[in-house]
């Protein structure tokens, strides 16, 4: 190990590192552009916070799906089922512990919701494990069958929710201290929306740190790009698959609880309804990209809120219009994932 011979000293110039900032700017630019259109600053603040809150909840539901797709090339059309199951599981805690929900105490409210979220994530995580094993594993690499099978899984799950919880819609009460709004000047900020933004940011930052700072996270990112090579380096990608699938399902469950509390009523169709939105978000973001998914979720939700205020009829199709616009600009989504 003494002879030191440098290979190729001549190619020292490195192409400039391109950090693709443009999509990052979209959210603030959009928000600022809308300010003069909305006209009133307090209304604008309220709309923006509402949009961010909705975006955060959609992000929770969509991030797992996009990661699962990126890593395993599996698009789970039944992802919405986890959202429903998560929300309905929460009722197992929230309904019997009604007194804690109704109590005028932040700690009791927080702990009961925290418990509901924990249970929901546990159940959806385990369900994700079973779903991956029973439904998805036999159809790896077969897209057509995947779509059909996961769609079928979704139908069955939705019906099973009917069987277990009945066909009636369930009212879900928002805990007492989460109700109402903070007033800043003329702008009213609903407390629950701020909570949703907080939870969403926590999820995003945690995901970001895990994917960038831990070995497992790096392996997931490596696996998204080249799963075979990850195996050749000596790691069992199947374990990663299962782990990511469970985590993604649990996140959908979390999103379901948050969304259910936001809507304050539950129907078994809640997951199916949100699926479309989630798909639009991950298409906009670029299939497989977590960062793109985050920006996509914010964009979709903000546009929906601004459009709902400025032109309610347009709001009905605003997400489709947004998707078309983004795809015309970048056909593979905001952050195309380099692979395949």
């Amino acid at each position, binding site marked *: *190990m003494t002879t030191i011979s*440098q*290979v*190729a000293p001549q*190619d020292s110039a490195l*192409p400039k590192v391109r950090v693709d900032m443009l999509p990052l700017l979209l959210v603030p630019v959009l928000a600022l552009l809308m300010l003069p259109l909305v006209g009133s600053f307090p209304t604008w603040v309220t709309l923006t916070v509402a949009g961010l809150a909705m975006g955060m909840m959609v992000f929770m539901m969509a991030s797992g799906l996009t990661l699962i797709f990126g890593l395993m090339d599996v698009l789970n059309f039944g992802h919405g089922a986890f959202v429903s199951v998560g929300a309905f599981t929460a009722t197992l805690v929230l309904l019997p512990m009604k007194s804690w929900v109704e109590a005028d105490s932040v700690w009791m409210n927080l702990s009961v919701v925290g418990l509901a979220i924990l249970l929901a994530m546990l159940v959806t995580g385990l369900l994700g494990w079973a779903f991956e094993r029973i439904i998805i594993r036999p159809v790896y690499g077969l897209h057509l069958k995947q779509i059909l099978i996961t769609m079928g899984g979704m139908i069955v799950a939705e019906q099973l929710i009917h069987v277990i919880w009945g066909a009636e819609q369930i009212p879900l009460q928002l805990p007492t201290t989460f109700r109402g709004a903070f007033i800043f000047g003329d702008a009213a900020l609903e407390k629950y929306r701020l909570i949703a933004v907080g939870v969403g940011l926590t999820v995003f930052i945690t995901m970001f740190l895990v994917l960038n700072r831990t070995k497992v996270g790096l392996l997931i990112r490596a696996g998204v790009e080249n799963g075979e090579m*990850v195996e050749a380096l000596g790691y069992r990608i199947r374990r990663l698959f299962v782990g990511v699938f469970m985590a993604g399902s649990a996140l959908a469950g979390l999103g379901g609880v948050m969304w259910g509390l936001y809507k304050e009523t539950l129907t078994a169709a809640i997951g199916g309804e949100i699926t479309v939105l989630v798909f639009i978000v991950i298409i906009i973001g670029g299939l497989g990209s977590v960062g793109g998914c985050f920006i996509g979720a914010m964009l979709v939700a903000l546009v929906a809120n601004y459009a709902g205020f400025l032109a309610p009829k347009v709001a009905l199709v605003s997400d489709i219009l947004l998707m078309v616009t983004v795809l015309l600009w970048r056909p593979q989504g905001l952050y195309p994932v380099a692979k395949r």
Partner: protein
Amino acid sequence: MSEALLQLDGVHTHIGQYHILQGVDLVVPRGGITVLLGRNGAGKTTTLRTIMGLWHASRGTVRFDDGDITQSPTPDIACAGIAYVPETMGIFSDLTVRENLYLAARNVKKAGEMDEARLEWIFGFFGALKKFWNQPAGTLSGGQKQMVAIARAIVEPRKLLLIDEPTKGLAPAIIQGMIAAFRELKQTETILLVEQNFSFVCALGDSVAVMDGGRIVHSGSMAALADDRDLQHRLLGLSLDTHQ
């Protein structure tokens, strides 16, 4: 412990409906560089992938270090001590050079804990890696990516390196550097090298096997093949003169 580190006996591999390997018998002795030559489509890459378990042999056995790995899953084969550098290099372009190497170092739990001395040894012949240590690997040039791919294979001691066409698409000056690096490497490592560049392997190879039509049609010492123009002609349809 037998002489051979790796031994393939009558290995057949099918990919879909295609019968690619049709009875490969190959022995890789411990130490030095064994070169696998042959024209395009002869089955060289398939041989490496079969050893690595990325495709499984339908018949025959693959023995490595006195264990049967014929049907082992890829991660187990990797953990048994075989490192693989595919023709496509398979680097993770989204990750930095450091993170690429960190993932390859299976026994290291934190990125900061990689063996410094060994890294310095690698930087000794792949200096560019040190320079671009924290750059995303996707931004590197082709030659630098190849360095990342090989460095990944040697970041921890392995018993056998499978390297598929490391000089493919590289400029001649860079290839000269690679030759030097491989000379250094073969002091300590056992390498099974697939290559088309005859002058490259002449400078490096210890023993050689030539493939054609999914079989090994010749094996012997590299020096003997390098000296025998007729044999080169017969086996490879080329000679050193025409190739250079």
